[in-house]
């Protein structure tokens, strides 16, 4: 097994001192105590293999499973993540590779900082990105803090992403496996987070990860991938929002771009920009959600040719390097997880706001989703989409 690129051991800011070349022998081969690393273990194949690889490389590995979703109490069947069954899988893997394993109850924090925002965003007519919030607040926030309490200066996750120390700073790159790349969900990581994180499977393909699990007899090689939103086990987001906040749901109108009422709907949280299914209106050509106005509860629909937008305004910008890219820098911008990054320019606006202008207009620019800025393989930053903009801004 080679030491993978997503596995930087010797850069400054991490647990070990070094010149950042990444060429030193692994920590474990040095004299003195082994470096302790906390691995976030979901019970799935990716984090299981991440833990096993760290053990192979000689780290003092501690596995922690986070109890996040409120229903993860054994009363439901496995939802692909965070169920009692998954904790048992994580524990079995930990036993197999000879590391201690603990379950930490983080339901209160998760409810407060992830689920609450998820519900609020849908009710505000936006499309939330709970995994990004969870990464910021829970995995790279709370868990990293608890890891430090346990004497681990670094954590590791099973994300398909790569980090490396080059040119005097930490870089975040897409995972080697294009189909599995999860760098989109990590754009809010900064220098401190990257210095304190290992992505052991970032340089592997999913097939290689499954083969490694098989080779090591981890017993999770064939587990299905977890679904995107772990706390909505059945995938019915609208029902979840209604259960969580029935009193705040407001019915409204489906309208055309010129304001004609085409139908009624049961709540703006049932819609996402770019959505076609479930509109419940008959029209001569397929209609798509173009805009959602939560204040009037109007959902604006339009035919396909009218849904592409030239750009958007975004807030809460975050730069991996800690400093902004030059104004009007050409970058590739990804506006949802599976979106192929589109060439665009990113313009600075007031405060932490930016405006993004695509080279070619894009469909499905959804307020609430993250726009992540890439330069080739590298994530340079990102921001949260606030509204579409069609006027030229450069």
């Amino acid at each position, binding site marked *: 097994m080679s030491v993978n690129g997503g596995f930087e051991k010797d850069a400054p800011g991490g647990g070990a001192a070094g010149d950042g070349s990444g060429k030193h022998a692994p920590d474990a081969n040095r004299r003195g105590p082994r470096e302790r690393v906390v691995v976030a273990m979901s019970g799935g194949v990716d984090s299981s293999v991440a833990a096993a690889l760290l053990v192979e490389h000689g780290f003092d590995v*501690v596995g*922690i499973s986070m*109890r996040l979703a409120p229903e*993860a*109490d*054994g009363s439901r069947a496995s939802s692909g993540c965070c169920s*009692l069954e998954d*904790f048992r899988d994580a524990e079995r893997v930990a036993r197999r590779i000879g590391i*201690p394993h*603990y*379950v*930490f*109850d983080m339901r*209160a924090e998760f409810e407060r900082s992830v689920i609450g925002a998820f519900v609020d965003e849908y009710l505000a007519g936006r499309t939330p990105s709970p995994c990004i919030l969870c990464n910021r607040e829970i995995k790279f926030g709370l868990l990293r*803090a*608890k890891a*430090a*309490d*346990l*004497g681990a200066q670094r954590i590791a996750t099973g994300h398909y992403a790569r980090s490396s120390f080059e040119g005097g700073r930490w870089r975040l790159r897409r995972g080697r496996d294009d189909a599995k790349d999860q760098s989109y969900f990590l754009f809010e990581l900064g220098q401190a987070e990257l210095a304190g994180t290992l992505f052991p499977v970032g340089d592997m393909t999913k097939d290689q990860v499954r083969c490694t699990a098989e080779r090591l007899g981890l017993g999770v090689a064939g587990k299905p991938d977890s679904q995107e939103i772990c706390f909505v086990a059945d995938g019915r987001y609208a029902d979840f929002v209604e259960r969580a906040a029935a009193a705040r749901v407001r019915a409204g109108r489906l309208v055309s771009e010129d304001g004609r009422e085409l139908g009624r709907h049961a709540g703006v949280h049932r819609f996402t920009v770019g959505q076609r299914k479930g509109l419940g209106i008959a029209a001569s050509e397929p209609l798509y959600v173009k805009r959602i106005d939560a204040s009037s509860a109007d959902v604006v629909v339009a035919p396909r040719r009218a849904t592409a937008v030239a750009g958007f305004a975004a807030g809460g910008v975050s730069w991996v390097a800690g400093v902004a890219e030059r104004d009007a820098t050409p970058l590739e911008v990804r506006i949802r997880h599976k979106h192929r990054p589109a060439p665009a320019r990113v313009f600075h606006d007031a405060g932490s706001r930016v405006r993004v202008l695509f080279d070619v207009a894009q469909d499905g620019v959804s307020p609430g989703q993250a726009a992540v800025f890439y330069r080739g393989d590298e994530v340079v930053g990102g921001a949260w989409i606030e509204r579409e903009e069609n006027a030229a801004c450069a």
Partner: protein
Amino acid sequence: MSRYFDYNATAPARPEVVAAVADAMAEDVGNPSSMHAAGRRARALIDDARAALAALVGAEPRDVTFTSGATEANNLVLRGFAAAHPDGAVVTTVIDHASILATADALEAAGYRVERLSVDASARPDYARIRALTAERPCVVATSWANGESGHVADLAALAHSVAPGSLLHLDAAQAAGRIDVRMDARVGSLALSAHKFAGPRGAGALIMRRGATELVPMLTGGPQESGRRAGTENLAGIVGLGVAATLAARDMHAEAQRLTALRERLWGALARELPDLLRISPADGLPNTLTIALVRPTSDVVVAALDLEGFAVSAGAACAAGAPEPSHVVRGLGLPAEYRIGLVRMSMGRDTTRSDVDELAAAFLSVVARARQAA
């Protein structure tokens, strides 16, 4: 040397118990319900154990019903009482053990009346309220003799005085039996206990109920074992081990209580000297072996994991299904400040704990807290 500080979860079996259990399984003993000699030998072993347990708590041997443990005994009393007294009620407190609270929940869901009393900072319920409730209708007043999380010991005189005639005072003595004086006197209707809390085997326990204390409908039906209160072939090896553990506990209890009280105060002193913000939950007149504290930072999950990584076993309170520490219902029930609610740490000692074990735990605890506070 022992780094095990979780005797309230389970106490390691004493060697004499292990030997007795092995002998009971190896010997040529039959089913106690059989007429033949092998059956008689089994009956003799069970009779001895019954007498040993009765002696530990000052009860009559015939009052003892062997069960799988205190959880079953609590279930038997609550469910059995409810079935025999449809117009009655269960009275308990918000800081009691899950085997009482969850059973009360289930009875309530089936339409039975349940009263969960709040407690004050010293774990005392409102005795006048108990008096009023038990005067109205037949109640089973079910609460801990000693609380396993907080270490508080019930004020038996006040409790017994508040239970009106016609109601049953049932005490869950799982954490008390074999550690402090547990006497089955006229004020006590029934007791539940588990052998593994006083160094006996797991899976053996008892309900001890004064004759005529109340009417009870058995939960398990089948053969006539245990005077019809608990059908099913007896757990012979477990019962024998329980008897041996009861005899050893009766012999050693008082000296152990003194020794453990001194260790507990030594541990508290070592921690409190360095950590002035540490909150002590277990009182000085509580269980001798139990020191329960709470701290704001780090949280109990970190403390338990960090000490485990150093080889020390401590607890964040009662375990849950996922194995993750949850905010303690006992801490909440005692009305402690909110910032301490996820910081409960329970260190419970026993037979093998020595002074140097306590000193080593204190040192490890302090360094774990210091490291975490530095990291913040």
